[in-house]
């Protein structure tokens, strides 16, 4: 599970009264420690500051807005494949940003064998239904949506593993 944390840092080794730049990032990570680590990883790439020269001022876990409302998330990802680095735009339907990002990591692992260390979540945005691009997401945008459950196979308990008649899969 990833959780977004907001991390703010500034440089140390400053003269008294000198204003040091303060940087803020939103990091998706399974826990606080990984979040801090990734924060420095990204900040190093973007600015000339290292963990040694910096100081984390504040780290807060961001709460999920409207956790019972289903939203469409557009996620801009950058990942390293075996032969190079690529950008992607992916869409997920979920109730929270963290859920969507978790889905993204699982999906990237499944579809592209990308490990978490090679994935960078560049941006995540809630997308309006009309602006979504992927057919998998768009198919859920039907106000009168309904699905049958043909041939529903539920995991039977071990007690009824051998039965005289085949179980009914009608729902």
């Amino acid at each position, binding site marked *: 599970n990833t959780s977004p944390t907001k991390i703010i840092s500034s440089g140390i080794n400053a003269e008294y009264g000198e204003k040091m730049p303060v940087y803020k990032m939103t990091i998706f990570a399974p826990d606080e420690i990984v979040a801090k680590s990734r924060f420095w990883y990204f900040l190093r790439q973007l600015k000339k500051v290292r963990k040694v020269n910096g100081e984390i001022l504040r780290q807060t876990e961001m709460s999920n807005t409207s956790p019972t409302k289903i939203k469409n998330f557009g996620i801009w990802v950058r990942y390293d494949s075996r032969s190079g680095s690529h950008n992607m735009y992916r869409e997920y339907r979920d*109730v929270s940003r963290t859920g969507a990002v978790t889905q993204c990591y699982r999906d990237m692992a499944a579809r592209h064998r990308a490990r978490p260390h090679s994935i960078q979540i560049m941006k995540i945005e809630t997308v309006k239904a009309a602006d979504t691009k992927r057919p*998998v997401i768009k198919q*859920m945008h039907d106000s009168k949506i309904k*699905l049958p459950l043909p041939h529903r196979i539920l995991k039977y308990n071990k007690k009824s593993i051998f039965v005289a008649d085949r179980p009914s899969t009608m729902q």
Partner: protein
Amino acid sequence: MLYIRYIEVGRGCFVRRGADVGKSCVVVDLVDQKHLLVDGPSSGVERKVVRLNQLALTDLKINIPRGCRTKKIRTELAKDGMEAKIAGVSLNRKHVAKAEKAALGDFARFKLRVAKTATNRKIRSTVRKLKKSS
């Protein structure tokens, strides 16, 4: 149509696995083909996302707009006693009975056994009598 029970907004279900086992709820929205947003204000299921295989569907359906609020679901369930109907569906009753049986104490099980033997004896004797007379 061949299928009566569709996964759709307003479908009454009951939870067969997970934290709220045995409670009835209503489908509020669909996240994807395997996850649903359900809500059971009167049965104590808080509004949340569940997996499809955690649910068993009932024949009953209430009329709610997609993604509507808990308050509206509560009022719709109160109409025509839908809440009681969904909770009273045979699947749910069986589940409740099973849970009750598992929670029986030793004395209760003894009483159950005595009652069962008495009933079976009566049934067998009646059947025998009918066979003899035919």
